[in-house]
């Protein structure tokens, strides 16, 4: 059965390692913070100026002066640091963030990503996405395998305006875990009960299927 968004977030949380500094995009990526293993410490960055973002506040803790990049009220963990936007993107640009998790509209088989603009629709802007994808050492895309029309979001080349070139390292969808390789999308894991044929049929870009593809364990 395909994973739901919580399942995708749980699988991504398995990528976390102790001591990592992590930037989570809006949407499914934000959910990853809920599944950090108890045994490790992960520091979340928010690009509006937080290192050490904590969970949402209780009603009593709500502070209008403290929001995340999604403009939601948040809290700080002990040992948090605050800074301005210029400093925040300086650390992003300098490659200090260990892991970046983003949503996407399309990913190409060489790791290009499109996630900011649909021609003909109101363009809201790229926010910090272009900065993140241009500099992050390790980018995981969290998304559904297909768009609402059922069309593959894993393509030979992006059809939408791109956000960045050759930057995605791994994709975790409702159906599969895939790595970007020199030869295309490498199928690493599949959702339990989902067939490799279904993944093949929903992946338009070049897909490499090893003989045995293990199930995602969550």
């Amino acid at each position, binding site marked *: 059965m395909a994973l739901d968004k919580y399942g995708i977030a749980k699988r991504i949380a398995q990528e976390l390692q102790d001591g990592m500094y992590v930037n989570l995009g809006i949407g499914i990526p934000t959910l990853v913070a809920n599944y950090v293993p108890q045994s490790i410490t992960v520091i979340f960055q*928010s*690009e*509006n*100026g*937080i290192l050490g973002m904590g*969970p*949402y*506040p*209780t*009603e009593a803790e*709500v*502070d*209008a*002066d*403290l*929001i*995340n*990049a*999604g*403009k*939601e*009220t*948040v809290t*700080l963990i002990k040992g948090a640091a*605050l*800074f*301005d*936007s*210029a400093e*925040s*993107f*300086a650390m*992003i*640009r300098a490659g200090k963030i260990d892991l970046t998790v983003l949503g996407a509209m399309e990913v190409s088989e060489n790791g290009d990503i499109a996630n900011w603009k649909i021609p003909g629709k*109101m*363009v*809201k*802007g*790229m*926010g*910090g*996405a*272009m*900065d993140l994808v*241009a*500099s992050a050492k390790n980018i995981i895309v969290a998304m559904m395998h297909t768009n609402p029309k059922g069309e593959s979001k894993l393509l030979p080349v992006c059809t939408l*305006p*791109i*956000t*960045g*070139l050759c930057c995605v390292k791994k994709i975790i969808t409702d159906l599969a875990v895939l790595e970007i390789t020199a030869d295309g999308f490498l199928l690493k894991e599949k959702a339990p009960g989902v067939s490799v044929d279904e993944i093949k049929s929903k992946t338009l870009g070049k897909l490499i299927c090893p003989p045995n593809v293990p199930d995602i364990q969550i």
Partner: protein
Amino acid sequence: MNKVVSNAQEAINNIQSGATIMLGGFGLNGIPENCIAALVEKGITNLTCISNNAGVDDFGLGLLLQKKQIKKMISSYVGENAEFERQLLQGELEVDLIPQGTLATRIQMAAMGIPAFYTPAGYGTEVAVGKEVRNFNGKPYLMELALHADFAIVKAWKGDTMGNLAFRKTTRNFSTSMAKAGNITIAEVEELVQPGDINPDDVHVAGIYVHRIFQGSHYEKRIEKRTVRMI
């Protein structure tokens, strides 16, 4: 040396129609509420506003949009705002969308007297159109220019009469860089204190950058997305 003015009206007194203004804040977080209200009241038009976002329909820069005072927005993310969308689609409003880090850094570079720098953000995208591409250590970068403004308007937590500013939590966002980059910088503060009341080690913006300062009033500090947990 007298930087203290009595209120927002006096602080923005010499801003004219057609001015380019940087306004601090991220979403509705840390926006200069008093000065925005004074700009609405003054009714000047044809403004170019540099601000990461464009407010919501009835708060922040949305108030200036409603009155059609803004000619052009320079931002990284807009459109939490129906009137904004209407004006944009009608061609009444120009918008220049810039990657958030590039926007923040272009402002910072203006504050640093650096006319141009190189960043990888936007390489290979439509943001790169018309820009110089240059390789350093085998990686391509775009040349980006410093972004200046006639005025910078920011809101700080505390400020002293010499113009030193301290911010609280995430309200620093674009405000510190803008405060340093404005040709004329106006700061409104929640609490105006005396020199020495802010620890010199904890000053976020040194007074040299601030030309006018006043204690604002009636801060609403509206929350855009009030998210809470149960326990």
